[in-house]
């Protein structure tokens, strides 16, 4: 039985995005919605210890925030018209719960990913409003300063207001063009939770789970679209490995060394089924392909049993559909492990000018140099990767590899 304070914290963790999304719909203003949401949590911290945790915390919070918004709007003539249009002043609490709050999150998601905003602004705004990350956390993720991030978010909201971007999930002909940035942003959001770009912690499960929840809502809303099927499959297969990524000391465990008994089989099975479906749908997306690669890993009982030939073939297709230097890097590694490690190393080295500042490039380089017996080169590559790595666990892991490569390897 959790305490009232714990209940508030839990509600914040699970419902922040939903509450903000619904309030934006009701009040038509991002900042007002966020402020009132914040205030409602502050009131909850005061009231719930005294009155008890409400039967429906989310509805209570939305209702409280709505009242706060009404008070503010009464003093502001401009917002009044919008609020009246949305029936803000009349809508009853019970209706708020029934009003499919998931839809509001999708409206917010599509709005945050509107093409009028640059991709960097899209992900920043999404992480802030739906992910509930603080500006400081988002700034760290992008290796930007807090003022820069603040500006980016402020300008994004202003631009949306200026262009009067409608708060809705697009339909019909508009949808195919709008969907890719939504999918990419959700993927970035998940990635930020799965392997944080910087800082001490590697994993933020709540952000991952929010991304998965949004991907589910998207798939439910658009059941005939291939992209959401592949994305959800990919996220589930990746998330399935979360309990194996860190050891008891909080140190990073790479895929090849993970204890697979710790993988979430239910999530992996669900992910695999979705990916299989996505592979049979048009268009074939990068998410379906990456998901398929994840499924091949999930199918292997141990790292040694991994079907690298299938993975190499999938990367070949990926390079045809959605090429990028990072995909090329992964394709080289898969080729090396599937077919010929010397050829794979040679192909990888051809990418060095494009990926000079990318830690995983040097880590992969080290791996292949090690496999071809070039010990000094491997150690040097791992050290370079450690210098470029964004998180402490990754740095420590790479420095360990640099040391270990010199000493005899235990099998």
């Amino acid at each position: 039985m959790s305490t009232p304070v714990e209940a508030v914290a839990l509600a914040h963790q699970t419902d922040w995005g939903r509450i903000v999304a619904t309030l934006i719909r009701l009040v038509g203003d991002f900042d007002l919605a966020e402020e009132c949401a914040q205030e409602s949590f502050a009131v909850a911290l005061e009231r719930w210890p005294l009155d008890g945790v409400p039967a429906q915390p989310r509805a209570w919070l939305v209702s409280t925030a709505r009242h706060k918004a009404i008070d503010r709007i009464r003093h502001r003539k401009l917002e009044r018209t919008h609020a009246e249009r949305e029936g803000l002043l009349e809508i009853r609490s019970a209706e708020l719960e029934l009003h499919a709050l998931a839809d509001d999150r999708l409206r917010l998601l599509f709005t945050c990913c509107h093409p009028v905003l640059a991709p960097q602004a899209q992900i920043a705004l999404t992480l802030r409003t739906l992910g509930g990350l603080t500006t400081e956390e988002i700034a760290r993720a992008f290796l930007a300063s807090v003022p820069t991030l603040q500006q980016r978010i402020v300008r994004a909201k202003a631009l949306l207001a200026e262009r009067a971007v409608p708060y809705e999930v697009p339909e019909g002909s508009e949808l195919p063009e709008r969907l890719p940035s939504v999918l990419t942003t959700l993927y970035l959001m998940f990635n930020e939770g799965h392997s944080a770009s910087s800082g001490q912690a590697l994993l933020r499960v709540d952000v991952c789970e929010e991304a998965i929840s949004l991907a589910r809502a998207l798939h439910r809303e658009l059941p005939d679209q291939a992209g959401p099927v592949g994305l959800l499959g990919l996220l589930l297969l990746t998330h399935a490995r979360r309990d194996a990524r860190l050891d008891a000391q909080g140190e990073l465990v790479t895929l090849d060394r993970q204890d697979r008994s710790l993988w979430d089989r239910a999530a992996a099975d669900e992910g695999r089924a979705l990916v299989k479906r996505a592979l049979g749908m048009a268009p074939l997306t990068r998410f379906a392909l990456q998901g398929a690669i994840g499924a091949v890993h999930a199918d292997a009982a141990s790292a040694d049993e991994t079907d690298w030939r299938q993975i190499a073939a999938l990367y070949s297709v990926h390079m045809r559909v959605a090429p990028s230097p990072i995909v090329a890097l992964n394709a080289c590694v898969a080729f090396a492990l599937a077919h010929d490690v010397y050829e794979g190393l040679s192909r990888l080295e051809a990418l060095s000018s494009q990926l000079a500042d990318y830690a995983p490039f040097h880590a992969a380089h080290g791996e292949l140099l090690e496999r071809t017996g070039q010990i000094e080169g491997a150690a040097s590559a791992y050290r370079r990767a450690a210098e470029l790595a964004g998180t402490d666990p990754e740095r420590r892991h790479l420095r360990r590899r640099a040391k270990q490569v010199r000493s005899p390897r235990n099998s």
Partner: protein
Amino acid sequence: MQYVLLIYGSERTWNDLSEAEKGQEFAEYMTFGKAITDSGAMRGGDALEPVNTAKSVRVRDGKITVTDGPFAETKEQLGGYYLVEAKNIDEAVSLGAKIPGARTGVVEVRPVIVFPSA
């Protein structure tokens, strides 16, 4: 009778397509492959890596020469093929017409000489 359906297309045109268009065409290839497998016509087929991975080998007067890429700078490059079973060339041609690559490039349909086993 067996026929090879050789798929020629411009790699430059392919590279200029959007990711969604490429994904769409790939999906159509998978649909085509499934259709000829279900009908029993499929005997084989592969997609090929792009021409920049190709090497050409010639032996003249016992001397081996290896060059990068195909023989000449052609407008269209071989991207893949299918080996199919069909009653006659007209049926093979109608299969070829269903290949997505036929819309932007050309599908060459060639009867295969099948040597009777001894």
